[in-house]
């Protein structure tokens, strides 16, 4: 990645009409993704298909693995070798990747996992939309760890948040999830690719000091500098609880220091990671908190409610995890009621309830379908 973006065969700055999944793939190329491993699954396939054509054009690696377990592990092998790597999947594949999300968190290997959510549980309706992976994204792998999950609601956001996902994963050495959904993945929409000089690209900080002094899991900083395989540092990485040298340890101090650091590097940076957008929030009595495709119908519903004289507002969360506590708490201080709109039986509503004191009501829509604005409008009307 020493080459300048201008010299590479990337999507040029300009305005496009593009499918969400393809915008995601092109964003990954601009972000510097050099290794893609995946397994076919609807509705994320366009990402892999596009990457299979585009990655070799840039001399980068695309491989179709035997399953999602292998895909998620292979990107970690590539990441350990020092390159940016990603995979994309949907519900059933996302479930199979949970083990490796924990490994990525433990070895502190940056990687990006795109989950184009479909209707579940189990096989569900593969070609229809869902938002049922909110909690799985955060808690799906066993043990204590933290990660970041972004949720796009448009083609543009899918593009922007994919680049952001790579940047955050490199900055904090964590797995980052892009929690898209079938509608956003398959929708065609406007995409503006800015001048490359306006695109922020983050690369993981590398250690270059003497080998004797290198502590791969030093607790001096929240994010220790990285060395890749072949750099000559003779690193040891293990999924076992380890000390600062990376060696397995059963000591209470080592366990505490490691797990605290894995968690705190996200928690302490939470405020910088929160992305959200407010609509009509200045005087809102009723606030709809939502994300992904549901934010699209919610915005229309809020506008119609305003036309009816209801003081409705909307908070669209682009960062789902770490949960944007402050903006939600503030919304709860001024609103009389908060509605949480999502295509599931109530997941995002739980962290909302944790941070606000006003009444919180879920607007839940049958899994498989995006709620029409009327449905959310009915929820708003019923709340006043």
């Amino acid at each position, binding site marked *: 990645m020493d080459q300048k973006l201008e010299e590479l065969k990337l999507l040029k700055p300009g305005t496009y009409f593009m499918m969400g999944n393809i915008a995601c793939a092109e964003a990954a190329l601009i972000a510097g993704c*050099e*290794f893609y*491993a995946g397994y076919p699954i609807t509705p994320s396939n366009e990402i892999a298909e596009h990457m299979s*054509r585009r990655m*070799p*054009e*840039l*001399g980068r*690696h695309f*491989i179709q*693995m*035997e*399953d999602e*377990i*292998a895909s998620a*592990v*292979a*990107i*970690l*092998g*590539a*990441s*350990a*070798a*020092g*390159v940016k*790597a990603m995979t994309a999947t949907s519900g059933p594949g996302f479930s199979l990747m949970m*083990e*490796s999300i*924990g*490994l990525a968190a433990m*070895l502190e290997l940056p990687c990006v996992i795109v989950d184009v959510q479909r209707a579940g549980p189990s096989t569900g309706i593969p070609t229809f939309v869902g938002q049922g992976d909110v909690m799985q994204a955060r808690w799906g792998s066993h043990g204590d760890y933290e990660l970041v999950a972004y949720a796009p609601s448009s083609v543009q956001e899918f593009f922007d948040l994919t680049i952001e996902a790579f940047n955050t994963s490199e900055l904090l050495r964590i797995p980052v999830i892009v929690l898209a959904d079938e509608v956003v993945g398959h929708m065609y929409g406007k995409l503006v690719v800015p001048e490359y000089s306006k695109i922020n690209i983050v690369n993981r900080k590398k250690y270059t000091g003497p080998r004797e002094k290198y502590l791969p899991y030093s607790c001096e900083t929240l994010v220790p500098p990285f060395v*890749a*395989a*072949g*750099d*000559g*540092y*003779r*690193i*040891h*990485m*293990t*999924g*076992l609880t380890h000390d600062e040298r990376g*060696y*397995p340890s059963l000591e209470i101090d080592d366990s505490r220091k490691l797990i605290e650091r894995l968690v705190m590097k996200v928690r302490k940076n939470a405020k910088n990671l929160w992305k959200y957008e407010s609509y009509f929030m200045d005087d809102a009595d009723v606030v709809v908190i939502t994300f992904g495709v549901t934010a699209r119908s919610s915005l229309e519903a809020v506008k119609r409610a305003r036309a009816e004289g209801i003081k409705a507002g909307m908070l669209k969360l682009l960062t789902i995890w770490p949960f944007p506590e402050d903006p939600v708490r503030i919304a709860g201080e001024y609103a009389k009621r908060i509605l949480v709109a999502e295509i599931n039986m109530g997941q995002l509503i739980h962290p909302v309830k944790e941070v606000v004191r006003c009444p919180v009501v879920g607007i839940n829509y049958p899994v498989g379908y995006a709620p029409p604005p009327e449905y959310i409008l009915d929820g708003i009307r019923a709340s006043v």
Partner: protein
Amino acid sequence: MVEVQVLREVVSSESPRDDLIRRERFPHIWCPGCGLGTVLKCYVEAIASSDIPRDKHVIVSGIGCSGRMAGYVNIDSYHVTHGRPIAFAEGMKIVRPDLEVTVISGDGDLVTIGGNHFIHAIRRNVDINVFLVNNFIYGMTGNQYGSTTPLGARSSTSPYGCPEYPFNLPLLAAALGAPFVARWTTLHVRQLAEAMKKAMKVKGFAFIEIISPCPVGFGSYNEMREGMDFIKFFLENCIVDHNADLNKVAISMRPGDPIILGNFVEREAPTYHDLEREVFRKAGWLK
């Protein structure tokens, strides 16, 4: 009366291979009589005598007794999740073809929970080495049977004898097209180290099944309680036949039924790296 004189000067706390061993991590966790120390010794000997710079060698291990191998070798070393070291190694090797990536792990790890990755990595002919240490049992978790446990053998979860047929791993690897397939025991130290050296030179997937004693685990359930019981068994029952019919090399661990050893397959085939370069050419990246 014969006086025994201890030659203190030959007793040394140092080893000529100390540079390749993480001495600070010793004593290791392996049981008395285990074969893994020998595997470690052969691996570092093979690294030391390979033409590849030490800092280009990488070891990846999974979970289990053999999975601890990565932690004792002083090169870039990765100890990953159960069954997944081959998939991890593939990702690493594909983006960094200059690295000599070796997976050392156990039978439960590589061909039971990780069997899918094993067969597909061979099918792709990714240029990695896989040294599978077969002790016929899940040692670390308490001696449960697995996909290599001989039919009828006892374990903590097969008290009436294992009701499943075991894998014939050299046959499986050869059938999938692996360019190098070998089997040795930890008694055959020189042959094993030589086979490892060969594997490092092979272009493509190189597979060695290493038959290793497990007196504390497998042995305690099957009347082989001492490390020497296995060594004697290997001495009496092993036959070296490089040209063996691989259909007939399944292991029963019954006295009189030979364990066939050898460097069974040595052939050339385009690797994943070669085939990927063809993709790069068609995509216009390479001329």
